Structures are given as C-alpha cells and as structure tokens.
C-alpha cells in the first residue's frame, strides 16, 4: 500500500545522528530517535532522495519501495 515508487532507508548502525537529513527533508518525514539515529516516517516520505544527497556520512539511501503497486 505504498503511494510512491521510492522511499528512504537509513543504515542505522552507521548513522551519526547529525540531523542534516531532518533539516533538508521537504516533507519533515525524518526525526532523530533519542540522539541515536535517524528514523524515516514511511507514511510521509515521498522518496525524493534529497536526504541521501545531503547526508555527510552517506548512510541514508533512496531505494525502490517494494510495496509500491502501479
């Protein structure tokens, strides 16, 4: 039941919780879980990939959403 073809996915074990992705996400879909790592709200994420382009650690990625149906 996904509306968009892509979504963002985060490598939690490498995320440094800097918050850059939170700042750039146009849908405000990302938050930092207790200072540990970024979590993406999949309901809000439109899969634009802006977060991935800005993450200084390069650990948040735009991936194909497997639940997407045309």
């Amino acid at each position: 039941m996904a509306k968009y073809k892509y979504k963002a996915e985060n490598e939690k074990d490498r995320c440094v919780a800097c918050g850059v992705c939170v700042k750039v996400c146009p849908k405000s879909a990302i938050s930092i879980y207790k200072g540990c790592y970024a979590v993406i709200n999949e309901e809000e994420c439109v899969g634009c990939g802006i977060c991935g382009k800005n993450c200084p650690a390069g650990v948040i990625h735009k991936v194909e959403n497997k639940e997407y149906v045309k």
Partner: protein
Amino acid sequence: MWVVSATYFALGFFNIVFAWFGVICFLIPLLIAIFGGGKQYCNHYCGRGQLFLKIGNSLGWSKGRLAPRWLSSKYFRHGFLVFFLFFFVQMVWLTVEVAKGIETLHETIHLMWSFDVPWHWAYRTEITPWKAQFAFGLYGIMLTSLIVGVILTIVYRPRTWCVFCPMGNMTQQISKLKAGKK
C-alpha cells in the same frame, strides 16, 4: 548560531581570553546528552555545524561529493575520539604544569596537532599564566577542528566533520547508552 561561532573565532584572534568561552561548547552538548536531550545540540544549536552548512550550501563552496565510507566506520570515529582526547589531556596537562610553574606560558597556538603557530598578539590582558595557557590550548583545538571541518566541507559535503566530530560521537554514545537502558 553560526554567527556565535564566527564571532568566537574572530574574538580569539584578537584576544585569547575569549577562547575560554569554548568550554561552553564542550560542556553544553555533554550536559544535554546526559540529561536525556539526545543530540539536540548537534541537531539545533551547534554553531560550528551551522557554519559548515553556511559555507557549503549558502555560499555554495561545497563540492557536495560524498566522503570515503570509512570515515563513518566505528573504528575511525572511535579512533579519532581517542586521538582527540589524548591531545585534550595533553593540553590540560600543560595547563597544570604552567600553573605549578614547571612550564612557562607558551604564547602559541598548537595547530593540526603538530605546528606551533605564534599567537602572542592576542595576549593583551595579563591574566594568570595557567588561565592564559588553557585559553591558547583550547583555541588551538577549536581552530584545528574548524580548519579540518572547512576543508572537508569544501572537498566533500558540508558537515562531513560531524561524521567523526568527537563531541558528536560522545553525545551519540551517551544517547545510545541512555536509550539502551530504558
């Protein structure tokens, strides 16, 4: 907040006494993390991080390339933290020695962990030697990380420094400990 950071470096250039304000940048993030605020400091308040975003994005100086992946590995991040703490302890040790009168005041800035750069012009107001020594030491650390951070911002993405920033790492580890306990 980036204005605060820029002001800090400017003031330290003219009068080293202002370097003492840098202590705030070490204590506040740790206190926030210890009292459950997570990485609020990095996420919202850190002037240095915002300065990198300003230089990289607003001024457009950043190439926006992704830094090598090993920068975000645990080994590198923790290794750098140890490296950083070693120099921090060394700086405090020198301060203690100056306070005891074993060492004389070094009116230099220790840059990039190796060079001593003369900085005597910034020593305008006579203060207790150890207080001045600490100011010089701290300013050296702050300036080093600024230089490294700016270079990384230009070559790679803004805030690449934040990937292995010792303060950012420490606050994240504290946050993880706290989150794990609950």
